[in-house]
């Protein structure tokens, strides 16, 4: 499932079998865990490297680490390996191939900010991933690599249970549900301690920066988007899977590198919270936060889906809307009622059996839903639906007039679009 793309940093030494690198193999590939001279040095190096979070929001990592390090008392580090994005496989691939690179990053980031404990959060349904990580943690203990104890935790796997306040809530003995924006985990998180939450790919990059430095890191990627990015690229491409790409590569170049079909006209960028675009609109843009900002897109967790020419984008978007509606934590009215409403609208539209004027209705509903949940879940769902209506505007008009495209009968290709099993958030 995992493939090397044009760059091999995080993916160095990955095997086709996906077998995890042992501690010995890891040290041979990347070198020993570098000693931490001072936390401040590492944080400065990470800041100078311009590393941004790989969990979706792309916030500068140095700034976040500084913020937590500056708080009083012992801290906690949480590594987010939940990967609840249905179209993403990059965290699972990274953990399963290079467990020790992530664990090095956990050790280094925790030490740098003064964390005495670390939790690695994994999906409960993650197959053998937790066992594999437990074994890796045990190997390090036996070989006395690192000092910060890492607890491997297995959480309910739902779209919102991997949001950082959900992780903190669950680690504190509560439900794996978002708790809203206050208090911030960085001020008062696990065990009421200041808590640094990072995606596992982010932490693996910290491990590389600690070894090779900021300048080396910036040798790949662009000035605005340095380093590499793990991307999960699926749909009409030669080999769907996980690729490591130079950050900020042009969308068109990425599609060529993975041999996307010539007739691909549309892509989904960023994942289920992401946006749909015509290829002609984005081919010349860098796949990075700044590069995509002009078309209201963002790399998210590095998902790129090339819509096969014989599939209907509206049907795919309707499937995503239904999935996200089913994933609402049902705490907030506009999310609990609004998401099923737009999922219903989009489904009617995709099926070419609209009741009333679905386009006007959706337009009104989008405005009533966005920004009105305790977390950004409803915003993400609206964003995806809205982008589909604009990327497939001509199709949407035809479907709304009761003339669906033939492709709508082909079924969908994206995963996770079955009605979600309503979560057990414990």
């Amino acid at each position: 499932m995992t493939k090397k793309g044009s760059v091999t940093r995080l993916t160095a030494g990955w095997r086709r079998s996906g077998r995890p690198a042992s501690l010995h193999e890891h040290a041979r590939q990347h070198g020993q865990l570098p000693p931490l001279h001072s936390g401040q040095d590492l944080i400065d190096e990470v800041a100078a490297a311009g590393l941004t979070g790989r969990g979706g929001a792309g916030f500068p990592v140095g700034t976040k680490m500084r913020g937590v390090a500056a708080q009083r008392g012992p801290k906690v580090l949480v590594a987010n390996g939940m990967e609840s994005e249905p179209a993403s496989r990059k965290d699972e691939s990274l953990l399963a191939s290079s467990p020790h690179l992530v664990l090095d990053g956990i050790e280094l980031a925790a030490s740098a900010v003064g964390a005495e404990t670390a939790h690695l959060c994994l999906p409960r349904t993650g197959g053998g991933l937790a066992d594999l990580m437990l074994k890796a943690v045990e190997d390090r203990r036996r070989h006395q690599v690192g000092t910060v104890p890492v607890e491997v935790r297995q959480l309910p796997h739902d779209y919102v249970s991997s949001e950082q306040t959900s992780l903190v809530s669950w680690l504190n003995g509560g439900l794996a549900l978002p708790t809203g924006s206050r208090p911030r985990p960085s001020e008062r998180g696990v065990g009421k301690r200041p808590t640094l939450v990072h995606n596992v790919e982010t932490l693996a990059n910290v491990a590389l920066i600690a070894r090779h430095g900021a300048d080396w890191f910036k040798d790949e990627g662009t000035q605005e988007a340095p380093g590499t990015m793990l991307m999960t690229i699926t749909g009409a491409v030669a080999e769907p899977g996980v690729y490591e790409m130079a950050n900020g590569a042009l969308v068109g170049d990425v599609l060529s590198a993975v041999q996307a079909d010539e007739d691909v006209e549309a892509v989904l960028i960023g994942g289920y919270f992401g946006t749909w675009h015509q290829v002609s609109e984005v081919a010349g843009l860098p796949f990075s936060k700044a590069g995509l900002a002009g078309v209201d897109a963002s790399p998210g967790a590095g998902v790129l889906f090339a819509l096969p020419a014989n599939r209907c984008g509206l049907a795919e978007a309707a499937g995503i809307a239904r999935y996200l509606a089913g994933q609402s934590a049902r705490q907030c009215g506009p999310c609990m009622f609004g998401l099923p409403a737009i999922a219903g609208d989009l489904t009617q539209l995709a099926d070419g059996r609209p009741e009333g004027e679905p386009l006007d209705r959706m337009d009104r509903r989008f405005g009533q839903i966005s920004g009105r949940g305790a977390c950004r879940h409803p915003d993400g769902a609206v964003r995806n639906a809205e982008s589909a209506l604009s990327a497939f505007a001509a199709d949407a008009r035809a479907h709304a007039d009761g003339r669906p495209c033939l492709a709508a009968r082909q079924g969908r290709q994206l995963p996770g679009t079955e009605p979600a099993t309503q979560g057990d958030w414990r």
Partner: protein
Amino acid sequence: MTMKLHVDPIACAGHGLCAELLPEAIELDEWGYPMLAASVPARLRGHARRAVSACPALALRLTGNDDRGEGGPARAQ
């Protein structure tokens, strides 16, 4: 100082009393949940306070109020 209403979306159960007491600044969406105006004019302070205390779920908050009582400084989200 301008006053601002805030709703805790998790606590809010869509009772809708607030919109009845303060229709000038609160409108209900099609599912019965309040959508708040960007700010509340000073002349509506009394009504706004009444709406806040009428909420059975204690989900509504008024900030930027110049006398002591509910609220406090407006917080950045």
